[in-house]
């Protein structure tokens, strides 16, 4: 008992000494308790914005402000607060400030790390507490009430102050006309070096491109204009773009506009062709593979200021070029696990404690510290969510620098959208006016996916979506199924355009692309077979959008014998406000030879129907490849008189048929 008594005396003594000394030297103790953080930079503007919201109790004053009053979705929210002693207006340096965010419904708006509040950190040089909030609910829009709770370093009740701001979704600055049809040119090679086939089956150069636009009645060209080819000798940090490609885009834009068509050019932002980006001098993006990291030799890091500047410059030059109707980007949004090199920005924004003496650590040590943290699934989840905010701010910065005087689009692969379902909303909230969604899946897969498309964001934003499907014979041909690949291509466009929008209001479509139809990926079908197919897509799409001066119906058998005469029936109904003159019909084969040339209806008065028929004999041509179906081209041309003068208009559509055996 005596020993216990001595022990308790000793303990009381030790506790007393600890409490007395602790209270005297508590600042020194705090140094061990508070961990190191990376400092957030603040603009002077925000520091002058105080006094707006304040609250005081008997001894303290609490002020709060945010960097903006109205935010877009996917925009970080900077909160700054001050805690002062009332008596002498001195800052309570050892206080703590916590911020909770509430939706207008009263529900807590969580931070991306899943926490209900953020704790602000004290910045001694500015005498303020600061922190960044990233709403985890990406889709929330409306009023947000922010409650700041200040805890002074004395045993007194905390004091709180409220402040309101708004999160809004961005409205498009520029709208595109409904029902746009584009011919895509996604070729990495220079177009001026590649031959195409003309309507009469001859090989011609790229000067014929505008002619195809007129023949098929496309509204314009959508072209990949800005590419960095890392394997080329003359590429440097000051001149990273393939200048020849930019020049020929400018030239094609001019020619397209001369034809009364529109030109859309886009820039491949962070992806380069080839794997030599370090040779150019760019910083590569880093990929986390679960344990360590590796460099992505074809993706430039978002931290690379050189790339950001050259991207903004090229974007701005396209924006200022009067021949470009639309300017776009692709490859800005990083896939999962890519972009690990952004770790310092992340640690700073989320105010995550770092190792002591962080600045003295080597890049390798810092990265190792971060990679260890990334192994935690929750941490990785937070990082991926934060990346969306970072990518959005990157895109916004470029748009702000380059200007926004015409519609801006983003070229998106459907696989990216599947990986980040919120990408579409993110893109639109960055100020993008419309997106081109490109599908690379096989025909059967797309048909299976139709239901998921119906219920996706694509449906909600249909009037800002341009549908694009990769023309590739191996994706389109279905074994044991007696349908031509061209028919499947055509059917996919019509089905997707229908299913992607409840009101048939898809903004438009683009063919991906002209050179797939002209060369490598066309299968046994000739370039002209494909062009007839593409023309049919334009024809049906314009029909849906009521952009025709007439309704056109025809009948021709789907099974025919060679060298036998068949009747070709046509029916025109003039639904325009003018008289159609010289409506001409030509029937062509796969090589551009005419079966019928120049069957003409002289005049179709306004509101009248005209029917006619003419004989057609299809003769056999020697075919190298076996096709599931044979293709005919039906070309309609007519004169259209408008206020601006007389114009020759044209449509070219396909008709498929099987060859019947002669015994039938």
């Amino acid at each position, binding site marked *: *008992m005596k020993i216990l*008594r001595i022990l*308790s005396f000793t303990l*009381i003594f030790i506790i007393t000494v600890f409490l007395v000394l*602790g209270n005297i030297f508590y600042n020194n103790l705090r140094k061990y308790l508070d961990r190191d953080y990376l400092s957030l930079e603040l603009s002077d503007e925000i520091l002058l914005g105080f006094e707006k919201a304040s609250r005081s109790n008997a001894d303290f004053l609490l002020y709060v402000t945010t960097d903006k009053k109205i935010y877009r979705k996917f925009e970080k929210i900077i909160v700054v607060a001050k805690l002062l002693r009332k008596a002498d207006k001195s800052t309570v340096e*050892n206080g*703590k400030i916590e911020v909770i965010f509430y939706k207008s419904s009263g529900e807590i708006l969580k931070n991306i790390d899943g926490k209900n509040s953020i704790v602000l950190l004290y910045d001694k040089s500015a005498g303020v507490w600061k922190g960044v909030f990233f709403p985890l609910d990406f889709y929330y829009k409306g009023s947000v009430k922010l409650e700041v709770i200040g*805890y002074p370093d*004395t*045993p007194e009740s905390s004091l709180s102050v409220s402040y309101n701001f708004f999160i809004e979704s961005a409205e498009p600055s520029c709208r595109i006309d409904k029902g746009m049809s584009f011919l895509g040119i996604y070729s990495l090679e220079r177009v001026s070096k590649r031959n195409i086939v003309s309507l009469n089956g001859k090989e011609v150069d790229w000067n014929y491109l505008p002619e195809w636009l007129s023949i098929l009645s496309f509204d314009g060209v959508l072209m990949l204009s800005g590419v960095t080819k890392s394997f080329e000798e003359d590429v440097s940090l000051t001149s990273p773009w393939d200048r020849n490609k930019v020049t020929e885009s400018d030239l094609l834009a001019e020619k397209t506009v001369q034809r009364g068509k529109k030109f859309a050019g886009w820039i491949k932002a962070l992806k380069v062709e080839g794997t030599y980006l370090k040779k150019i001098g760019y910083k590569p993006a880093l990929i986390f593979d679960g344990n360590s990291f590796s460099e992505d030799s074809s993706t430039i890091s978002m931290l690379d200021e050189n790339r950001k500047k050259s991207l903004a410059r090229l974007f701005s030059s396209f924006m200022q070029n009067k021949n470009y109707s639309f300017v776009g980007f692709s490859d800005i949004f990083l896939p999962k696990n890519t972009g690990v090199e952004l770790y310092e920005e992340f640690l700073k924004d989320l105010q995550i404690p770092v190792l002591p003496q962080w600045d003295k650590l080597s890049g390798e040590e810092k990265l190792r510290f971060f990679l260890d943290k990334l192994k935690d699934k929750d941490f990785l989840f937070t990082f991926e969510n934060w990346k969306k905010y970072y990518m959005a701010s990157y895109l916004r910065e470029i748009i702000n620098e380059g200007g926004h005087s015409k519609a801006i689009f983003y070229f998106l692969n459907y696989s990216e959208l599947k990986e980040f379902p919120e990408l579409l909303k993110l893109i639109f909230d960055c100020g993008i006016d419309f997106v081109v969604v490109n599908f690379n899946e096989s025909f059967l897969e797309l048909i299976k996916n139709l239901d998921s498309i119906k219920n996706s964001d694509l449906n909600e934003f249909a009037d800002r979506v341009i549908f694009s499907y990769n023309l590739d014979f191996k994706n389109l041909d279905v074994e044991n199924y007696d349908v031509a690949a061209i028919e499947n291509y055509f059917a996919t466009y019509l089905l997707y355009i229908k299913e992607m929008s409840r009101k048939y209001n898809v903004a438009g479509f683009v063919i991906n692309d002209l050179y797939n139809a002209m060369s490598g990926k066309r299968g046994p079908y000739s370039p002209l077979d494909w062009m007839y197919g593409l023309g049919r897509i334009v024809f049906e799409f314009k029909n849906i959008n009521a952009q025709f001066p007439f309704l056109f119906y025809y009948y021709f058998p789907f099974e025919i014998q060679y060298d036998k005469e068949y009747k070709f029936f046509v029916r025109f109904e003039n639904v325009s406000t003018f008289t159609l003159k010289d409506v001409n019909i030509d029937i062509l084969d796969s090589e551009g030879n005419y079966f019928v040339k120049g069957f003409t209806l002289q005049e179709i008065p306004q509101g009248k129907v005209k029917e006619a028929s003419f004989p057609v004999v299809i003769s056999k041509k020697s075919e190298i490849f076996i096709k599931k179906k044979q293709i005919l081209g039906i070309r309609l041309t007519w004169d259209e008189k408008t206020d601006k003068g007389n114009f020759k208009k044209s449509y070219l559509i396909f008709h498929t048929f099987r060859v019947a055996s002669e015994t039938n």
Partner: protein
Amino acid sequence: MKKLFFVAFCFSFAIFAVLTSLFVVLYFRLFPHRAIFVYPLSFVFGFLLGILFYLVLTKFMK
């Protein structure tokens, strides 16, 4: 010794109160935004002090 019990009790009570106050103040100084935990922690701290002072006070009860 019994006569001294009352004095010892009062003295212990005073030290008890001072130490608890010091604990609360230090806690606020070190963990201001964790103020909510000061109540349960003070209870634990007081319980610990109570045991220690019990051992001391029993000396004056004989």
